[in-house]
C-alpha cells in the first residue's frame, strides 16, 4: 500500500519531466541539433562546484516563490501576483536598507521585515478586495502586478535612485554589514574547489527554515488545518466554524509576506542593491515549481533544484551554439505536462479505488450469500 502510494505520487512529476525532455528533444531535432549531445553537455557541465553553487543560487528564490504560491494553493487561492509582490518588496527593502544605519543583525532584520510587510500589503490589497468586494484574486493580482511594475519604474526613476556613473538606476549598495555571508564553506569543507564568481547564498538557511515553518504551519497547526479544509471543502469548513473571509485575507497576507522574501537572496547577496535589471519572472516560475512539487515542502525543494540546475546548464548550450531558450520551452512544457499528468493519475487512482471498493463489496456480498 505504502509503496504504491509513493509510486503514484512520483509517477506524475517524473513522467511529466520525461515527456518535457522528449518534447525538447523533438524541437532540437527539428532545428537540426542532436538532442543527446545537447543534454549530455548539460549534464556534464552541471557536475562541478561552480555549477552547483550557481544552481543553488537560482533555486533558493524559486523555492521561496513556490512556497508563497503554495500557501495560496492550500486553500484554492491563486496568487499570480507573487511577481509584483516580490519586486516591489525588494525595491522598498533595498531603499530602507541603504537609508538606515544600524547594528548588523538588526539591520538585516529591518530589511527582511520591510520586505515581508511590503509584500504582505501588496497581496493584502487583493485579499481585501476579495473579501469586501468579491473581486476574483486572479484578476486583481494580475492587475496589481502591472501596477507594481509602473510604481517601481516611477519610484526608481524619481525617488529611490542614487546618483551613480552608470545608467542603471539603483537604490544604492547596501553596506557590507547588511549583507548575508556566503556559505561557500559547504563546498570547500568536502574538499571541492571554491566556486568561481558565484556564491552559495546565505539566504539558503532562511529558505530551509521557511520550508520547515511552512510544513509545521500547514500540517501541524490549527490555522493550517483550517487552511487545508477551506481549500478541500469550503462548505463544510464554514459549517465547522471557519470564517472563510478571515482565512482568505490572512492567507493572502501570508502568501504576500513570503513573496516579499523572494528577492532578498539577491538583494542581500551578490547584487547588494535593487537595480533596474533585478532578476524578474521568478514569481511566475514559482507557480511552476509549486505545481511540480505539489505544494509539498520537499517536493518543491526538488522542483526548485531541478529548475535551478536547468537554468545553469542552459549556459553551456550557448557556448555550444545551441539556443539556450530550449530550457524555457522544456520548463513551460513541464508546467502543462505535470498538471495533465496529475489529472490522469488522479483519474487512474480514482478508478482503481472504485474497482477495489466494488470488489470488496462483491466479496462481502458473496460471503453473506454463502452464509
Amino acid at each position, binding site marked *: 500500500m505504502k509503496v504504491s502510494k509513493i509510486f503514484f505520487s512520483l509517477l506524475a512529476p517524473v513522467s511529466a519531466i520525461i515527456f518535457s525532455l522528449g518534447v525538447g528533444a523533438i*524541437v532540437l531535432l527539428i*532545428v537540426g541539433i542532436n538532442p543527446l549531445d545537447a543534454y549530455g553537455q548539460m549534464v556534464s557541465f552541471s557536475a562541478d562546484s561552480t555549477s552547483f553553487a550557481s544552481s543553488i543560487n537560482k533555486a533558493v528564490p524559486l523555492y521561496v516563490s513556490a512556497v508563497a504560491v503554495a500557501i495560496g494553493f492550500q486553500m484554492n487561492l*491563486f496568487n*499570480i501576483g507573487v511577481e509584483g509582490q516580490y519586486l516591489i518588496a525588494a525595491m522598498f527593502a533595498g531603499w530602507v536598507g541603504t537609508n538606515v544605519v544600524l547594528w548588523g543583525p538588526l539591520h538585516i532584520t529591518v530589511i527582511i521585515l520591510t520586505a515581508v510587510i511590503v509584500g504582505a500589503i501588496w497581496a493584502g490589497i487583493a485579499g481585501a*478586495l476579495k473579501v*469586501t*468586494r*468579491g*473581486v*476574483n484574486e*486572479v*484578476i*486583481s493580482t*494580475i*492587475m*496589481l502586478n*502591472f*501596477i507594481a511594475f*509602473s*510604481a517601481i*519604474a*516611477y519610484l526608481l*526613476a*524619481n525617488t529611490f535612485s542614487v546618483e551613480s556613473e552608470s545608467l542603471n538606476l539603483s537604490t544604492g549598495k547596501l553596506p557590507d554589514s547588511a549583507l548575508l555571508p556566503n556559505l561557500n564553506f559547504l563546498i570547500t569543507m568536502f574538499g571541492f574547489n571554491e566556486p568561481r564568481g558565484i556564491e552559495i547564498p546565505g539566504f539558503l538557511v532562511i529558505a530551509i527554515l521557511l520550508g520547515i515553518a511552512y510544513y509545521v504551519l500547514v500540517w501541524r497547526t490549527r490555522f493550517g488545518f483550517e487552511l487545508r479544509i477551506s481549500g478541500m471543502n469550503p462548505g463544510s469548513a464554514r459549517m465547522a466554524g471557519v470564517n472563510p473571509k478571515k482565512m482568505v485575507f490572512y492567507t493572502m497576507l501570508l502568501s504576500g509576506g513570503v513573496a516579499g522574501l523572494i528577492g532578498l537572496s539577491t538583494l542581500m547577496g551578490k547584487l547588494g542593491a535593487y537595480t533596474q535589471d533585478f532578476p524578474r519572472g521568478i514569481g*511566475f*516560475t514559482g*507557480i*511552476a515549481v509549486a*505545481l511540480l512539487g505539489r505544494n509539498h515542502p520537499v517536493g518543491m525543494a526538488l522542483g526548485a533544484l531541478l529548475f535551478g540546475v536547468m537554468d545553469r546548464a542552459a549556459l553551456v548550450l550557448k557556448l555550444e551554439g545551441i*539556443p539556450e*531558450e*530550449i*530550457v*524555457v*520551452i522544456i*520548463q*513551460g*512544457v513541464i*508546467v*502543462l505536462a505535470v*498538471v*495533465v499528468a496529475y*489529472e*490522469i493519475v488522479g483519474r487512474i487512482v480514482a478508478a482503481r479505488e472504485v474497482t477495489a471498493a466494488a470488489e470488496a463489496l462483491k466479496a462481502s456480498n458473496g460471503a453473506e450469500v454463502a452464509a
Partner: protein
Amino acid sequence: MTTTTREPMVEMDGGKQKWSKWGLMLVIFLVSMIGLSAIQEIAGTSQLTSSGTWGAALRLTVPILLAGLGGLYSERAGVVNIGLEGMMIAGTWFGAWAGWQFGPWWGVAFGILGGAFFGLIHAVATVTFGVDQIVSGVAINLLAAGAMRFLSVVTYTIGSGGGATQSPRIQGFIQTFDIPLLSPFLQSIEDKEWFFFSDTAGMLGGFTTNVSWLTVIGLLAVPITTWLLWKTAWGLRLRSVGENPWAAESLGVPVMRMKYWGVVISGALSGLGGAYLVLVQAGIYREGQTGGRGFIGLGALIFGNWIPSGVLAGAGLFGYADALRLRQASAVHALLLLIAVLLAAFALWKLYQKSYTAAVSMGVFAILFYLWWALTDEVATEVVTATPYIATLLVLSLASQRLRMPAADGIPYRKGEAH
C-alpha cells in the same frame, strides 16, 4: 450604461428601445465632445482632439480590442483565458516571420495561425484534460515567450539582419486609405480651429485618414462577433456552454466541441492582435512588443462586461489614454481636469437621485482630481501606463454588482458529467 447594454439577448421590444439607445449614445457623444473641447481650451493644449491623436488612438485600440474579443469567445464558452498575452506574442512572431518571408497579408494569416496554435494547446489542456484554466494560461504565457525567443535565435540570428530579440523588417506594408473628399474636407475644418466643430472634425478625420485595412478588419470583428454570438444558433450554443454546460449537454449541444471553438478562436483573435502590432504599428518584431496588451485586453473584457460593444469601449478608452501619452505627455495632464468634471457631474446626478453617500464620495474624488490638476504641471507617464490596470480594478471593486460574467466561466466540465 443603462440596463439595455447589459444583455442584448433579453431585449424584447427591439424597435423603440433601440432608437432610444442610439439617441442616448448620440447625446453622450455630443456632451463628451463639447466637454473635451472645453477642457482643451482651459488647459491650453490641442492634442486632446487632434486628428493625429485620434488616429494613434485607433491604432492602439485595435490590438487591445482583438485580445479582448478573443477573451470574450473563450470566456463565453466557459474557459478563462489568461494565456491571451502568450497567444498574442505568438501572433507577433509568426506575423513578423511570414511578413518578412512572404509579405504582410501572409503575416496576418500566420499571426492568426500562431495564436490559434497556442489556443489549441490551451483547449487540449483545459477542455480535454480538465486542467485548472489559470494554471494552463500561466503555462502558455511562459511557453510562448520562451518558444518565440527560441525561434528568433534559430531563424533571425544568422544572416537575416535580425537578432535574438528582433526580426528583420517585413516586406511591404498593409495598404492604407483615405476616404476621398471627406478626409481633406475634415482636415480643412480642423485647421480652422473652431470650437467644437474643429474638434469633432479632428476626431472624424483621425478615423478616416490614413486608415489601414487591417484596422477595418479589426473593427469589423465587433459587429461580426455580436452577430455570431447573439444571432446564430452556433452562438447560442457557444454561450449556453459558458452559462450552463450541464443543461446544454442534455439538450444535445456538443459541449466539448463548442469549448474548443471558443478557445481556438480566442487564440486566433489574439494572434491577429499580435500580427497587427507588427504589421501596422512597428513593421518589425521585437521581444516584449505586446507589453501586457493581452492582459489589458482581459481588462477591457471585464470593463466591457463580457459584451463586444463593451469590449470596444474599454479598449477605446485604454487606447486613447495610451495615444495621448505617446503623442504629448503633457496633454495627459488635461485629462485630470476632465475626470474631475465628469466626477462632479456624476456627484450632482447622485445628489439628484438622493443617494447622498455616493454623491459626497464622488464629490470628494472630483475635488481631489481637480487639486491634482491645479497643483501639478504634468502627470508621470507611469501613471498612464498603469491606468488600464487601475481602471479594471476600480470597475471590479466599485461596479461588481453590474458585472455579469458567464455563469459557468472557469468551471472545468467533463463530458457526460450531468448524467
